[in-house]
C-alpha cells in the first residue's frame, strides 16, 4: 500500500528510510531498498542528511519509484531559497512523486562542507504553506500554475524535546500549514513517548514513531550525549552491549519497541542506518 492509501485506510503505517550514495552509484541503494517493496508503505529518501553532500533525494525517489516503492521526498530548508524549493516540488510532482516530508535540515556547520552558506530562506512551517499553495495551483507570489501537484505532505516532530511546549506549538503550526502526517525522532523510551502521544492524539494527525536500529552501546551513548530528544534507557544499552550477535539483538530490540508502540501511535518509521537488509525481517517479526 502506498503512504497516502495507508493513511486513508487508517492502517498501522510502516515506513523506512534510505540515504543516497556519496557519488553517482545509485544502484546499490536501489538494490538495498528493493526487498522493502511490499513490506513497507513508503520509503523516505534523505536530503543531504547531516548536511553531508551526496546525491539528491529527488533522483533517489525517482529510482525507488521505478523499483516499485512509494518514495517520500525529503526536502530541507537548508540548501535552497524559495525559488529552488518551489521548483523542486514541481519537479517531484512531474516525476510522479506524491509524498513530501518537509524539514528544517541540519546546519551546514555540522556537515562535510562547513563553509557552505546556510540558506534557510523559509522555515519548515513556511515551506509547508508554500507546498500546500502549489497543490492549490498557486505559487508563493500568487501566480497561477500551469498544472498543479497533488502531494501528501508530512513534517517531523521531536517527541522528547525539552521543553516540549515549543515543539508542540510548532507542531500545531505545521498542521495548520498542511502537514498530513508526522514522522518522529527516534523513540527508545516508550513511556515518555506515550506522554507525548497523550498530548497530541487530539490533533487527529497520524504520528509515525521513529525506530532507529541500535547497533552498539557506543552508538547509544553518543546519541544520548549529542542528539536532541533521544534517550536510550540503560537497560537497552546493556542489552546491546552484552549481546553476542548484535544484529540479531538489534532486530529484537526494534521488534520489542514496535510491539509496545503499536497500540499508542499510528505507525513506525524504521531508520536502519546502513542495516537496510534487516528491515523486512523486522516487519515480519513485529507482525506489522
Amino acid at each position, binding site marked *: 500500500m502506498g503512504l497516502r492509501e495507508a493513511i486513508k485506510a487508517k492502517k498501522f503505517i510502516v515506513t523506512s528510510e534510505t540515504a543516497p550514495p556519496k557519488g553517482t552509484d545509485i544502484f546499490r541503494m536501489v538494490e538495498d531498498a528493493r526487498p522493502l517493496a511490499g513490506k513497507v508503505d513508503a520509503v523516505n529518501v534523505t536530503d543531504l542528511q547531516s548536511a553531508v553532500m551526496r546525491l539528491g533525494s529527488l533522483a533517489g525517489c525517482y529510482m525507488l519509484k521505478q523499483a516499485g516503492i512509494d518514495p517520500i521526498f525529503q526536502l530541507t530548508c537548508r540548501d535552497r531559497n524559495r525559488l529552488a524549493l518551489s521548483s523542486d516540488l514541481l519537479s517531484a510532482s512531474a516525476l510522479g512523486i506524491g509524498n513530501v516530508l518537509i524539514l528544517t535540515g541540519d*546546519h551546514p556547520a555540522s556537515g562535510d562542507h562547513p563553509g557552505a552558506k546556510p540558506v534557510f530562506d523559509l*522555515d519548515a512551517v513556511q515551506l509547508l504553506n508554500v507546498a500546500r499553495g502549489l497543490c492549490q495551483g498557486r505559487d508563493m507570489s500568487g501566480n497561477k500554475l500551469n498544472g498543479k501537484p497533488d502531494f501528501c505532505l508530512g513534517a517531523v516532530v521531536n517527541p522528547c524535546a525539552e521543553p516540549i511546549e515549543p515543539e508542540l506549538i510548532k507542531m500545531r*503550526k505545521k498542521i495548520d500549514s498542511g502537514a498530513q502526517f508526522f514522522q518522529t525522532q527516534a523513540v527508545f523510551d516508550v513511556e515518555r513517548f506515550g506522554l507525548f502521544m497523550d498530548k497530541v492524539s487530539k490533533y487527529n494527525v497520524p504520528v509515525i514513531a521513529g525506530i532507529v536500529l541500535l547497533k552498539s552501546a557506543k552508538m547509544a551513548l553518543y546519541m544520548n550525549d549529542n542528539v536532541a530528544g533521544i534517550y536510550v534507557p540503560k537497560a537497552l544499552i546493556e542489552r546491546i552491549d552484552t549481546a553476542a550477535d548484535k544484529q540479531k539483538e538489534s532486530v529484537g530490540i526494534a521488534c520489542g519497541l514496535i510491539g509496545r508502540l503499536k497500540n499508542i501511535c499510528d505507525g513506525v518509521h524504521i531508520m536502519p542506518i546502513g542495516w537496510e537488509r534487516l528491515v523486512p525481517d523486522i516487519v515480519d517479526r513485529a507482525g506489522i
Partner: protein
Amino acid sequence: MIVTRKKETEVILGMLKGYKSVFLIGCAQCATMCKTGGEQQLCDMQALLEAEGKVATGKAILDPACHLVKVKQFAYQNKDAIKGADAILALTCGDGVQAIKDGIMGKTVLPALDTLFLGEFERGGHFSQKCVLCGECIIDKTDAICPITMCAKGLLNGPCGGSKNKKCEVDREKDCAWILIYERLKVLRKLENMEKIACPRDYSLQSRPQKVIV
C-alpha cells in the same frame, strides 16, 4: 557599534608590500572601543611598520572615520603628510576604509581590520551580536530577542528540534534562541505570539547597496 578585529600581521604586511611610506588613520568611535583603531593601536602599528623598514608619514584619528565630510576636511588640512605617503592604512571598519577612499581622492587605502558585526558592548573587550540589520524589525513579537540573529538558522516559527539541554544544535555553548523566546513569552503570558504563523521574510528589504535620504 561596529565590531572589528585586527587582521593577522602577515596579512597586513602582505597587502603593504611595495608601499614604502604609509599614512595611518584610526577612528575615535567604534574602532577605539574595540581597541583596534585607537591611539595605542596606531602607535603599535607605526612601530611595527617602522620595524619592517617602512616610513609612517603621519597618523590621525578621525571622529568618526565613517563621516565623509569630516574625512574631506581632514584631507584638506593634512594635504602634505598624505601626499607624501604611498598608501593609507585604515584602522577602521570597512565603511571607514571606504569613506576615507571617497574623501581622500587618488590614494590607495588598505584595510588593517576585519569588520565583524554590529554589536553590543557588554563590558571591556566583550562584544556580542544581537542584530543583523535585516531591514524590518520583528522583535515586538519575540519580546526583544531576535531569532534572525540569535537562532543559528534564523528560523521564525519556533525551534528546529535540534536543541539539547536548551543549547543550540549548532553550538552547544550557546542558548537556543527559540527556547529563550518561549520562556520569555511564557512568563509574560504572550505565548499566543508564538502560535501565530510568521510569514516568510521579504529579503528585497536587504537588497544591496542601500541608500537612505532623510
